[in-house]
């Protein structure tokens, strides 16, 4: 009896060791596993990441400055490109914690972000790869939201003045519904915008919708013989009014210029 227990324990420990060793091998090979809403999703980097030891501090500082300037250059180039169009677009500066609506280069509205979280992958990507990824604007492919894009009221014209008097309404103050949404961009980026005010019921409902959508995407991938895709994400919290303004003002396939520095 005891022998059987010892053998069983040995098998379990061996299996655990194999799993841990395999995970470390994966890390070395450049793959990452990220938890995201209960799913274990793997992503394979296309290039092996090697960290170079830069010992000379002045070279390190110059490299950092150059990287910052390159990042800013990419951001300004994208904004200049988007400013030539006739649409409203997003300008997202992570370092400044601001998310702005712009049009023709004019900042129409700037929201202050109270909290930012993002995928761990952004810490590990080399600056050169990141700047390449940021070198052109992102375009919204799809969105999922707790509020309608446009609040339209349907009204039938009254037949006569008596019906008009009976059904006439007065304008009402704006009511802000709990605002949570995900904007899925091309080139693999999801932006989650959550209101900072507490609304647990609405938040639960939104995340339930989100999880169902993610489940469907994962299931579709698995059925077609591929691993579920990993999409780097950025989650931000804004005031409810600001989140709603941004969502309702953006075109359906709006664009965004993004800067990390």
């Amino acid at each position, binding site marked *: 009896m005891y022998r059987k227990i010892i053998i069983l324990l040995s098998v379990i420990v061996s299996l655990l060791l194999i799993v841990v060793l395999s995970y470390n091998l994966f890390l070395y090979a450049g793959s990452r596993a990220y938890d995201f809403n209960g799913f274990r999703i793997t992503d394979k980097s296309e290039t092996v990441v090697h960290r170079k030891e830069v010992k000379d501090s002045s070279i390190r500082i110059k490299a950092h400055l*150059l990287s910052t300037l390159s990042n800013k250059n990419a951001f300004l180039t994208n904004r*200049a490109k988007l400013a030539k169009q006739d649409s409203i677009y997003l300008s997202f500066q992570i370092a400044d914690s601001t998310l702005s609506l712009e*049009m023709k280069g004019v900042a*129409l509205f700037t929201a202050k972000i109270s909290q930012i979280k993002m995928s761990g992958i952004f810490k590990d990507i080399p600056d050169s790869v990141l700047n390449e990824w940021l070198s052109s604007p992102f375009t919204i492919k799809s969105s999922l939201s707790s509020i309608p894009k446009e609040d339209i009221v349907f009204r039938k014209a009254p037949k006569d003045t008596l019906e008009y008097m009976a059904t006439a309404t007065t304008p*009402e103050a*704006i009511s802000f519904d709990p605002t949570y949404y995900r904007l899925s961009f091309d080139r693999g980026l999801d932006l989650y915008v959550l209101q900072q005010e507490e609304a647990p019921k609405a938040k639960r409902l939104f995340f339930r919708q989100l999880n169902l959508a993610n489940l469907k995407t994962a299931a579709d991938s698995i059925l077609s013989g591929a691993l579920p895709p990993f999409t780097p994400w950025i989650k931000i919290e804004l005031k409810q009014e600001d989140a709603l303004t941004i969502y309702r003002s953006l075109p359906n396939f709006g664009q965004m210029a993004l800067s990390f520095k």
Partner: protein
Amino acid sequence: MKTQNSTLEKQINRTVAGQSYLVVNVSTNKFRLFTKGEMVREGLCSTGTNVLLTTDNEKKKWFFSTPKGMHTIIGKTTSPVWIKPDWAFVEEGLPIPPANSDLRYEYGVLGDYAMSLGHGYLIHGTLYKRFLGMPATHGCIRLDDEDLEVVYTTMSIGSKVFIF
């Protein structure tokens, strides 16, 4: 690269450099007036109700929404007169009068000034000041009397109005 960045910034800010412009937020019904890049006034306004009005047989439809985007002031008027379009009669259950009927003209309801954005959309005053800050119009932008006077005197024909 610093020079390039500086050039790009100038390029981006070219649209309204040194000019006055108005920014209207239809989600919160607030406006801000800018002159030479500085905000000089902000306040409440009323914008479109987003009502889709249809006749009984659905042959005619009107959508009362303030159009988003960049607009230009194409005309300025003092003591404007409202020339009532068809929907103003339809929504009250009234018969539509002929185009040149006296019933089409209403005086004193648009305030002291009006600025035209084209396609029938105006920035004007209002008798219904208690509705400022709410979506209450058929697409026009309504301002309080004092705000309207400041905006009218600051903006000129060709000034930009950004609505989002």
